């Protein structure tokens, strides 16, 4: 009986995911370009694709850039998310309701829409960001181009990603914090030094499992990110100097129709991600098993 119930899902996942994963491995060992796509038949070339990728300086630069990018994004998302959650506890109820409503609204924004709105806000001609920064006397940002350097491009992408991810992290951490005994939270309000120590001694251990899962999820999402950098930096300005892994894979494997090499890149990416997500998967399995 249970097998009968699971069968449809297994069948669907097997055909539409198992088979592609199998073919991902096979593709990575083949020369598979446009002519092969038309004939539906690749040419076996062993580990040649992996050799190509691993000897490509662009791959290593991209990997390094992506790791730095991931650390920065996850660090900012988690750090600000926790602070935001702690703030949610301390504000008056009406502020909390307002702030939560705002967060949920931001959370619900589709990535593509968010990118277009940020494009408009940061556009160099009359983007409102340049106007506000200039008006606040933070420098002269008149017609400042935010997409001039790789660092600036990726900083804007980071701001967009952190902005989009904060609501989920803050609201989830807030939910976890509600398990911390109320007296402790209120006691923590009395003086600053004690409140910091209380946070690390009492609060942190209670919310640690949630933080662990949120961090793992953030690492996975940020490492493989595609939509935001690809659309915000924009096709004509995308290149080896600002690739992140997701974009690199799309440009080198799909756009250049070098599917064999793309498959090799995918596998390397999946291996790195799998190594990073072991903690998360193990924890979730334990939860699923305990019940």
């Amino acid at each position, binding site marked *: 009986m249970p097998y009968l119930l699971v069968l449809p899902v297994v069948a669907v996942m097997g055909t539409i995911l198992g088979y592609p994963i199998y073919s991902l491995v096979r593709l990575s060992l083949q020369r598979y370009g446009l002519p092969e796509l038309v004939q539906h038949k690749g040419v076996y070339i062993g580990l040649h694709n992996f050799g190509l990728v691993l000897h490509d300086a662009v791959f290593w630069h991209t990997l390094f850039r992506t790791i730095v990018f991931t650390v920065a994004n996850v660090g900012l998302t988690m750090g600000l998310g926790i602070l935001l959650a702690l703030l949610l506890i301390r504000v008056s109820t009406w*502020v909390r309701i307002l702030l939560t409503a705002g967060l949920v609204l931001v959370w619900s924004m*589709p990535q593509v829409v968010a990118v277009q709105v940020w494009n408009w806000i940061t556009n160099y001609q009359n983007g409102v960001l340049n106007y506000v920064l200039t008006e606040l006397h933070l420098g002269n940002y008149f017609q400042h181009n935010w997409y001039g350097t790789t660092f600036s491009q990726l900083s804007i992408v980071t701001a967009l990603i952190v902005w989009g991810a904060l609501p989920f992290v803050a609201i989830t951490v807030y939910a976890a914090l509600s398990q911390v005994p109320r007296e402790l939270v209120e006691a923590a309000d009395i003086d600053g030094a004690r409140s910091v120590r209380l946070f690390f001694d009492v609060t942190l251990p209670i919310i640690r499992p949630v933080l662990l899962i949120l961090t793992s999820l953030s690492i996975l999402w940020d490492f493989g990110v595609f939509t935001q950098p690809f659309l915000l930096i924009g096709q004509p300005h995308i290149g080896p100097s600002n690739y992140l892994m997701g974009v690199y894979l799309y440009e080198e494997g*799909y756009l250049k129709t070098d599917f064999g090499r793309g498959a090799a890149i995918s596998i390397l990416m999946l291996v790195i991600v799998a190594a990073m997500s072991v903690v998360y998967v193990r924890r979730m399995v334990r939860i699923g098993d305990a019940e």
Partner: protein
Amino acid sequence: MNGRTARKTLWNVVGLVLFVVMIFPVFWMISTAFKADDQINSLTPTWFPLHPTLAHFGDAIHKPFFWNDVENSVIVVAVTVAVAMTLAFLAAVALAKYRFTGRKLFIVLMIGIQMLPGAGLIIPLYVVLARYHQVNVLSGVIITYLTFALPFSVWTLRGFILGIPKDLEEAAMVDGSSRLGAFVRILLPLVAPGLVATSVFAFITSWNEYIFARTLLNDQSKQTITVWLSYFLGTSRHTDWGALMAASTLTVIPVVIFFLLVQRRIAFGLTAGAVRG
């Protein structure tokens, strides 16, 4: 007591400032959508459109392929949700109510699959779907979306089914119904809220999805609304920000409505059980 009130006021001010910062992009999108062109293109921004115009909405929906691509999105989303819910419900019942060999492996796969970065699967999915002539047709995208909708739905629904008291189900069985009969008569109505929450999540992810729709659908007449929106900027030298923001606002509306209804459940699903330690 006074210091305490002062501190609360300070936190409230910080909270309100953060609210303004976080909400600003959303506000700016809606505000721009209603502004006249000269206000949009001016170097000094107009914060509130005091004389709102609907012109940009008219422009947006009359652009080529807008309705066509909205229709595509609706078809893709509806089919994905319907199929995913049916299959996921069956599997979730099995996971929640039976112990069987391979159960653990199944859980590992369900969770592991969600960990795969979407970008990593573009290449093999494209090649495999091309072989079966599923590129540039909606069915190819629907099949792809199922791979993402199913694991999440199974996992979340399982949580809802576990929440149902065992006595209820046993009571139904004592009544003489078969186990399956008990499921249908007792479980289904109780799980209905869970089904709604899960389908809304599946709805949102499919409606918002971008990278697979972009790679699998090439014709403008076949694309989904997110892909349509992503090509908006590239169409001319002078960007029509008003129409772009109007189109963005229209795309967001269904998502926001559904999202507000179920955001708590989604947070629950993604961190299932973790909160309870």
